[in-house]
C-alpha cells in the first residue's frame, strides 16, 4: 500500500501526469458529492429547451436544460456517479478474471494455455462493439448485464497482457530458486510473479478505465446502456441528437465531461508508464 502511494507521489515531477490526476480526482469528487453539488434533481423536468444561464426560481440552470427540461449540470454530475460506479465495478471484475487466467496460462503453459488462449482469441475475434451488441440484445440491457458484457469483452485483453508478462517472468532465476526451495505453483504465481506485474498492470488499468468509460458512454449513445431515466452521458447525447443542431449545449456538456475524464486517465497512464520504465 505504501509503495502504491509512493508511485503516485513520484508523479509530481511530470506536469502532464499531474493534470491527468487532477482531472480524475475532480470527477471522482464530483461523483461523490453529486447530491450536495447538484443544484436540482436530475430527474425532474423543469424548463424544456432552456438555454444555459436561464433562471428557474432562485437558481440558475447553468448549463441549460434538456429536451424534457431536466437540468443538464445536475445530470452531468449524477452521470459521473453512474459511469464511475459501473466502470470501476466492471474493470475490477474483468481484472479478477483476466489476471487469474493470464497467470495460469503463462505459468502452466501447455494445454491450459492452449485452451485459455484460444478462448481469448475467439472473444477477441469479434469487433468490440459487435460483441456488445450481440450480448446485450440477447440478454437485454441492464446494469448487471453491462457489467457482465464489459467483463467478457475486457478480460481476454487483460489475460493476454498478464500471460505475456508471466511467460517472461517464469524464466527468471528467482522463480527457479523458488522451485528449488519446494514452493508450489500457487505460491509462485501469487507471491513471486504477481507483484512483478504490478507496474505494467497499473498502466494498463488506467488505460482500460478510460476505455471502459468510453464503452459505457457509447452503449448509452446507441441505446443499449443503462435503462432510463438514469442519467448517463451517452444517452444524454443520444436524446439530444435530433435537436443538437439547434441546441448544441445539450450535447456539448456531456461530451466535454466524458472527454475530460478519459483524458485524465490517459494522461495518468502516460505518467505511470514513464515512471515504470525508469523504475
Amino acid at each position, binding site marked *: 500500500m505504501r509503495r502504491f502511494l509512493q508511485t503516485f507521489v513520484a508523479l509530481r515531477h511530470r506536469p502532464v501526469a499531474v493534470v491527468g490526476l487532477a482531472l480524475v480526482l475532480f470527477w471522482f469528487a464530483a461523483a461523490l458529492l453529486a447530491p450536495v453539488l447538484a443544484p436540482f434533481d436530475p430527474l425532474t423536468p423543469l424548463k424544456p429547451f432552456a438555454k444555459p444561464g436561464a433562471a428557474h426560481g432562485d437558481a440558475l440552470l447553468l448549463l441549460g436544460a434538456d429536451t424534457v427540461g431536466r437540468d443538464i449540470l445536475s445530470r452531468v454530475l449524477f452521470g459521473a456517479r453512474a459511469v464511475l460506479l459501473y466502470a470501476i465495478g466492471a474493470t475490477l471484475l474483468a481484472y479478477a478474471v483476466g489476471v487469474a487466467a493470464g497467470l495460469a496460462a503463462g505459468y502452466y503453459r501447455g494445454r491450459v494455455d492452449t485452451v485459455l488462449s484460444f478462448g481469448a482469441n475467439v472473444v477477441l*475475434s469479434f469487433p468490440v462493439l459487435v460483441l456488445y451488441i450481440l450480448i446485450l440484445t440477447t440478454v437485454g440491457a441492464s446494469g448487471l448485464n453491462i457489467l457482465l458484457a464489459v467483463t467478457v469483452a475486457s478480460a481476454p485483453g487483460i489475460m493476454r497482457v498478464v500471460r505475456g508478462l508471466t511467460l517472461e517472468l517464469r524464466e527468471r532465476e528467482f522463480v527457479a530458486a523458488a522451485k528449488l526451495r519446494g514452493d508450489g505453483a500457487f505460491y509462485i504465481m501469487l507471491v513471486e510473479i504477481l507483484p512483478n506485474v504490478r507496474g505494467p498492470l497499473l498502466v494498463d488499468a488506467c488505460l482500460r478505465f478510460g476505455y471502459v468509460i468510453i464503452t459505457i458512454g457509447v452503449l448509452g449513445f446507441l441505446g443499449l446502456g443503462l435503462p432510463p431515466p438514469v442519467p448517463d452521458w451517452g444517452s444524454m447525447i443520444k436524446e439530444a441528437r435530433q435537436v443538437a443542431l439547434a441546441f*448544441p449545449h445539450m450535447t456539448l456538456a456531456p461530451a466535454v465531461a466524458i472527454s475530460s475524464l478519459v483524458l485524465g486517465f490517459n494522461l495518468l497512464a502516460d505518467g505511470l508508464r514513464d515512471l515504470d520504465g525508469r523504475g
Partner: protein
Amino acid sequence: MCLFLLKRLGMLALTMLVVSVVVFLLLELTPGTVATKVLGQYATVEQQRIWLETHGYFDPAAERYLRWLAKLLTGDLGESLRYKTPVGDVLWPRLLNTVILGAAVLAIMVPLSLALGVVAGMREGRPSDRVISIVSVVTTSVPEFASAAFLSALFVFALGWLPGTSAMSGGFNWRELVLPVAVLVLYDFGYVVRMTRASMADVMTQPYIRTALLKGLPFRVVVLRHALRNALIAPFTVILLQVNWLLSGVIVVESFFAYKGFGALLLEASLFGDIFLIEACAMVAVVVAVGTQTLADIAYAYLSPRIRFA
C-alpha cells in the same frame, strides 16, 4: 513457410467455427424468442409451435447448428424480418457504403499517422515530439460520439459549412462524407501515431543505427535506409488491425450521422430483433476481423527478419 501458413489458416478456420457456434447459441438457441420475433407478438402458441416445427426448431441443437452452418456457407442468409427481403439484398449494398467510408478513413489516416509518428520518433524528447504526443493523447480521449457532437456544433451549427446528416438522399455527395471521416480519423490516428513513434524511437536508439551514423552516412540516409525499414514493421501490422477497430467505430459514426452503412444496419437490426440479419452481420464482421488479424500475423512474420530467416 508453407507449414506456417497452413497452421495460421487452420487456426483461422477453427476460430471461425467456434465463433459461429457462439453466434448460433446466442441467437437461435431459444426457439420461443425466435418464433415471437418472426411471427410477431400476437401469434398464438399453436401458430408458433407449427411454425417452429416446420422450420425444424425442435430438432436436436447440434443438427440445427449444422444445418444453419451449411446454409450460411452456401450463401443462404435467410430473410430479413424487418425488410421482408433476402438478407443479402440489404446487407451487401450497406457493406459497400461502409467500405467506401473505411477506405476514405484509411487513405487519410495511414499517411498522416505514419508521418507524424516517424517525425515524433526521430525527434524524441524535443518540442515537436511533445506536441505530437499531447495531440495524440487528447484525440484518443474524445470518444466518437463526443467528437461528432463537437464537430457538428462547430461546422454545422456555428459555421454552416457542412451538412448535418449523411443520408446521401440526393445521391452521392462528398460533403456528407467529411464529418464521418473526420470523426473516425480523429479518434484513431492518435493510437497509430503513438505506436509508430514508440517503434521509431526504439529503433533510433539501437546500436546499428549508431553504426550507420559512425560509418559517415548522412542522417537522412540513415533514417530512410536503416531506420524506417525496421521501425515500420510494427505500425504496419497495427494498421492492418485498425480494420477490426473500424468495424466498431463505424457503428457509432453511422448512427450519429444517419449514414446508411453496415454498422447502422447491425444496430438497427439488433434493436428491432431482426435475428437473421443480426447473425449475418455478425458473421460478416467476424470474418473481416479474423481475416485481417491473420493477415497481420503473416505479414509480421514475413517482414521480421529473425522469424523469416531463422
